[in-house]
């Protein structure tokens, strides 16, 4: 993603403008390369295209964007080079999900913002992701526990959203579903391998399942935005995904000779309303500092 924020005030086209294309022909292609997501054509950045479920979509996009940033941290830090590539690839898929949604959100929330405005120019309180994805990178077992839960959640979420009444949302979900199934498969392989591996790997995988536990409930909270989106048959009530997600995870955990911990003494909340945990600030600082230090820079 380039750091060049698109300029809403000059965007008079009928579709959201995407990032400039790099390379020798960038000036020519900048105006020519634009998104034509199905259903997006009639929505400009102005209020006439405004739709009330932008906040719901922002939560979904922010989950993907923030987790992409966390997973990207594994590059050069994973236990083996194949995992550098795997987690980098998964991060890229999630970044793609976020990019599929941000320009569209900008076209329906009345602000006309572009993808870089959302990713690079918002402060902590303006992010609507759950706490699970912003937590600091732990050991590899921690990441596999988080990826197992998050990708199981995303498989159910995107399966449901492929039937969304909004064509753009259905299109992004249909694309993402193929990818997140693969993420789930990857996490599942590792959880089983570590759980059913050595005594040490089993102990650490089990500990990771317990550490991730307090941050799971928030995935299934029916907040105001999701209730509205579900009423409009654009989104899905998170609570309705819970049982299927748990079933997926439970099966993998059992195969890995592990135990699914039940109940946490505390739980995170507030992410969808912009209330975040301590690690979020430094995550944003690292992610945004170049874009903010050089406003409007392009390459």
């Amino acid at each position: 993603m380039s750091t060049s924020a698109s300029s809403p005030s000059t965007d008079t086209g009928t579709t959201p403008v995407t990032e400039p294309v790099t390379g020798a022909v960038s000036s020519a292609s900048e105006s020519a390369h634009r998104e034509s997501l199905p259903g997006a054509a009639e929505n400009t950045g102005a209020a006439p295209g405004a739709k009330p479920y932008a906040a719901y979509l922002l939560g979904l996009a922010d989950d993907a964007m923030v987790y992409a940033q966390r997973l990207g941290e594994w590059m050069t830090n994973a236990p083996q080079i194949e995992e550098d590539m795997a987690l980098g690839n998964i991060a890229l898929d999630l970044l793609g999900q976020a990019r599929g949604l941000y320009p569209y959100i900008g076209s329906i929330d009345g602000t006309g913002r572009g993808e870089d405005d959302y990713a690079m120019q918002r402060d902590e309180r303006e992010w609507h992701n759950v706490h699970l994805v912003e937590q600091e990178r732990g050991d590899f077992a921690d990441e596999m526990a988080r990826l197992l839960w998050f990708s199981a959640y995303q498989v159910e979420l995107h399966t449901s959203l492929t039937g969304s009444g909004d064509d753009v949302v259905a299109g992004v979900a249909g694309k993402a579903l193929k990818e997140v199934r693969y993420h789930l498969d990857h996490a599942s392989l590792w959880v089983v391998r570590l759980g059913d591996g050595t005594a040490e790997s089993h102990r650490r995988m089990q500990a990771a399942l317990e550490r991730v536990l307090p941050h799971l409930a928030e995935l299934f909270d029916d907040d105001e935005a999701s209730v509205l989106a579900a009423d409009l048959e654009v989104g899905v009530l998170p609570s309705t995904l819970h049982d299927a997600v748990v079933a997926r995870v439970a099966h993998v955990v059992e195969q890995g000779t592990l135990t699914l911990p039940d109940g946490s003494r505390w739980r995170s909340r507030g992410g969808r309303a912009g209330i975040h945990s301590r690690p979020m600030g430094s995550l944003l600082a690292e992610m945004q500092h170049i874009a903010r230090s050089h406003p409007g820079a392009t390459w």
Partner: protein
Amino acid sequence: MNAVAVESAVAEAISRIPDPEVPVISIADLGILRDVDVDEQAHTVAVTITPTYSGCPAMEAIASRIVFEAARQGYAADVRTQLSPAWTTDWMSDEGRAALLRFGIAPPGAVPVGEPHGPVAVTLSRHVVACPRCGSADTTEIAHFGSTACKALRRCNACLEPFDEFKAI
């Protein structure tokens, strides 16, 4: 040259653009070029492409190359990205599959119908992939994710060479 020939010249130039990550296959053979609509009066061409994966970084390079190739033919290109219907390896042409094989990349198999594994995961990669070098079916997956989003890494147990597999999605 008549109008039809001119139209096919720009369309053909665009369809022949190689994929930047796997240059042995064209964007048409890969199945990511979805539509080329030439307007002879305005000398414009509307091109619709779809990404292989949501975050495919090659899309911008492909879009700029389309603009470049169209300009060489005297046309202004309008490149649109379309997500739905989602790209599938089933759209890859036979020529494209043969080109991948010659290049040493195992072409994708048929996409499994529906969800391949129900609530149980751990099975997506357990399928038979023939070695593109020696043809042996005795190959093992080394890594779920290869050098690009669209590939996995495998090794042939017969000739012992590692190779890329284009994943079926």
